[in-house]
C-alpha cells in the first residue's frame, strides 16, 4: 500500500476522531451554559416559564428584566404566537431572543437587550 496514502488516511481518521471528541466534551460545558438559558417551546399564548436556577440568580442580581417583560415588548412589535425564547450571553451582556410566528404566518426573530428591554435586532426568518 502507498505509504503516503496511509499517512494521510491515519491523520484524517485520528484528526477527525480527536476533533469530534473535543467537540463532544465541549457539549458538557455548553450544557451548563444552557442551564442559564431560559427556553420555552410550546404552543399557546403565554409560554410557560421554566426559570432555571442560574437564570433566577442573574435575575435576582437585578441585571436583567424578566422574560415576561420582554415578551410584552415582543408582542408590542408583532402580534402572533411565541415559538421560542432564550436568554443568551453575548460579549458580556445578556440578550433575550424571541421567535414568534406573526398573523401572516411569518417567523420573526427578535433580539432584546436583557437589561433595558431595547429591541436590538429583528429579522424575518423562513
Amino acid at each position, binding site marked *: *500500500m502507498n505509504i503516503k*496514502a496511509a499517512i494521510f*488516511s491515519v491523520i484524517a481518521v485520528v*484528526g477527525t476522531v480527536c476533533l469530534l471528541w*473535543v*467537540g*463532544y466534551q*465541549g457539549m458538557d460545558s455548553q450544557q451548563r451554559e444552557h442551564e442559564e438559558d431560559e427556553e420555552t417551546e410550546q404552543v399557546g399564548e403565554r409560554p410557560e416559564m421554566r426559570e432555571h436556577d442560574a437564570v433566577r440568580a442573574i435575575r435576582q442580581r437585578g441585571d436583567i428584566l424578566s422574560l415576561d417583560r420582554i415578551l410584552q415588548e415582543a408582542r408590542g412589535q408583532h402580534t402572533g404566537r411565541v415559538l421560542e425564547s432564550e436568554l443568551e450571553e453575548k460579549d458580556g451582556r445578556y440578550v433575550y431572543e424571541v421567535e414568534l410566528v406573526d398573523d401572516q404566518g411569518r417567523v420573526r426573530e427578535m433580539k432584546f437587550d436583557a437589561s433595558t428591554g431595547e429591541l436590538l435586532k429583528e429579522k424575518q426568518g423562513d
Partner: protein
Amino acid sequence: MEQGEVRVWDPFVRIFHWLLVLLFTLAYFTGEDWLSLHVYAGYAVFGLILMRVLWGVVGTPHARFSDFVYRPSRVISFVKDTLALRARRYLGHNPAGGAMILLMLVSLLLVSVSGVAVYGIEKGAGPLAMLGGSGEFLEDALEEVHEFFANFMVLLVVVHIAGVIAESLIHRENLVKAMLNGRKRALDEE
C-alpha cells in the same frame, strides 16, 4: 481482487469521502443547540478539505486534480451524453464528477470559513475570536453565506447521488461499492 479489476481509489480518497459524509451530516443536523459538536465537526471538515487539496497535487494518479479537472465544454457534453444514456465510461472521475468535486470543495471551504467567522463574531471564540463584536452587519452577512452554502451543499449531494446512480446504471457497475473497496472493472479494450 476479482479478475479484470483494478485499484482506482486509494485509501485516503475513500476515507476522505466517507468521513466527509459523516461530518457534513453531523454538522448539518447540529446547529446552535449543539454548538460545540457542530463547531468541531466544522473544523474537521476544514482540515479534511485542506488535506484533500494537497492530495489532489501529490496523491495517487486518479486522486489528482490533473486527472479529473476538465474544460467546462467537456463537462457539459458529458452531462448531455449522460442524459442521452450514452456517456463514455471513465476509470477515474468522469468530467461531471470532477466538476462536482471542485464545486463541493469550494462550497465546503466557504461554509467552514464563514462558520468560523460567525462563531468568532457572535461568541468571541475560536480561531477568529478577534472578530468578536465586529458588528451585526458582518455577522448577518456571514450567517447568510454559511446557511446558503450549507443548503447548496445539500443540493450538490442530491445531484451527486443522482449522477452516481445514473452512471452505475449506464455502465452496469456499482460505484458506491467502488468508493468502499477502491476497485473498479478495468476499461474494456477497444
